[in-house]
């Protein structure tokens, strides 16, 4: 915590939204450029957070299982350090470029090897189960990690509703992609729409979260609004954002980063300190916003107790 003013930025005392919004109106009124020129640094400081206006709605939730008691990251970190290539490849770009992303109305279609294929509207999803707050570690393949209070419920709730047939062995997920709203997507270097996948038993594991919010509110756009997956024992890119399609399938589905470079990103992509990415050692990580890469990475990101049995007898070096 070398880097911030000594405020205890738990998400409860993030600047109240009304202050943000007022500030923004104020800035708009005068014009940011003129303002900065007028009064210099202090006002610039105001202008910078004004980009982070978050139009979240409060969500009520109960305390869910599996939460860590580690210190959670500030809301500001989690909303200004995003890998969301549809909105730009730099980590500060999604916060700026996703502000106008339209996430309502939203539907998630469920199809494939299920008895009850159907579409869910966002309103329906929010009512499928009591919302739980779960504080998970998130480990990125790039060697950094954060702790986030997500809100949602186990994906298994939804899976049970649609009743997979015996043929269903994998679940394929797809993100929303609209080049009109995501003009930087064509420079991402990866094929879009973004696709991901899990084995059915992984999808059914209670840890796997269908996530609709964080920090007590609906998801900010740059964090995958309005609904995403959080799979905490896998590298972050498995936790697909802005989910629109779920398909139950027989065979292992294609996944975006694996398509891009299969030696670097496997289908499983379980957090594993013993299997290095060709470009990054995975033995250690830095817990943002710390400077040093001092944290030892835990096998399955510390969730072995819940999920190690899924991989019993599998060679995780081969199935990376």
């Amino acid at each position, binding site marked *: 915590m070398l880097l911030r003013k000594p405020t205890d930025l738990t998400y409860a005392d993030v600047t109240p939204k009304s202050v943000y919004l007022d500030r923004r109106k104020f800035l708009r009124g005068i014009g940011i450029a003129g303002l900065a020129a007028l009064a210099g640094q202090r006002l610039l400081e105001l202008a910078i957070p004004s980009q982070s206006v978050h139009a979240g709605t409060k969500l009520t939730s109960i305390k869910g299982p599996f939460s860590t008691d580690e210190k959670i990251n500030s809301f500001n970190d989690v909303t200004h*350090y995003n890998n969301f290539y549809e909105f730009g490849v730099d980590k500060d770009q999604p916060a700026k470029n996703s502000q106008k992303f339209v996430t309502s109305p939203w539907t998630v279609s469920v199809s494939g090897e299920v008895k009850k294929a159907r579409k869910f509207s966002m309103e329906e999803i929010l009512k499928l189960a009591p919302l739980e707050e779960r504080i998970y570690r998130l480990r990125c393949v790039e060697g950094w990690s954060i702790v986030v209070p997500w809100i949602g419920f186990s994906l298994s709730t939804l899976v049970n509703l649609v009743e997979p047939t015996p043929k269903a062995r994998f679940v394929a997920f797809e993100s929303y992609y609209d080049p009109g709203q995501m003009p930087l997507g064509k420079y991402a*270097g990866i094929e879009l729409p973004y696709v991901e996948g899990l084995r059915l038993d992984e999808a059914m594991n209670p840890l796997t979260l269908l996530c609709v919010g964080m920090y007590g509110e609906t998801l900010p756009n740059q964090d995958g609004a309005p609904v995403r997956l959080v799979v905490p024992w896998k590298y972050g890119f498995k936790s697909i954002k802005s989910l629109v399609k779920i398909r139950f399938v027989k065979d292992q589905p294609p996944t975006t980063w694996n398509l891009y470079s299969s030696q670097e990103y496997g289908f499983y992509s379980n957090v594993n300190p013993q299997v290095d990415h060709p470009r990054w050692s995975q033995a250690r990580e830095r817990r943002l916003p710390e*400077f040093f890469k001092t944290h030892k990475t835990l096998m399955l990101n510390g969730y072995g107790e819940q999920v190690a049995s899924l991989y019993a007898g599998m060679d995780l070096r081969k199935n990376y």
Partner: protein
Amino acid sequence: MHTLLASKWTKGALFLLCLGPLASIIWPFVRHYTIPDPLQFIQHGTGDWTLRFLVCALTVTPLRQLLRLPELIRFRRMLGLFAFFYACLHFTTYLVFDKLFDVHEIWKDVYKRPFITVGFLAFTLLIPLAITSTTGWIRRLGGRRWRILHRAIYLSAVCGVIHYYWLVKSAVIRPLFYAALVALLLAWRLGQWFLRRRRTALAGAGPQRAPVNASQ
């Protein structure tokens, strides 16, 4: 223009300008802006500027000739040394924050990860150039040998670009942009070399042949 370029103030001003990127990296920390990933912020800032200064240093000679401003040579050493300066900061970030001074791990990285290998090569190549950048060393080596040695900057820039290309996950546009710049600057030199060769060859077509390698 010529007097402006020859003025000692210009050099001082350029020096301050070259410190600008360093200030832009330090400033957010001084101001306590929230920087979610300080290591990456510094590593990328210093890496970007190393490459940019290498490109600037390589641009001096073509500009001198295209604009007919030979005085520009006064700034080349400074630009090159700033490239080295930012490379040192870049490497230090890696050494201290990423590898926590673990030399064994660094060797493993250099050996195992191609992007580190070429980055390391790019950096190592700059060390003798920085050391021999003084007037004393130019005299000691002699202009010709000094120039040959300092052609290592071409290789360093090429390695720097490959390093960048290999380290991005998928967004290769920026590395390709630098690759194009470096390629252009090197192609220009190659073009000049051919022209000079042709000229000496033509001049040598008379009764006394000029030595072929007079193409310095």
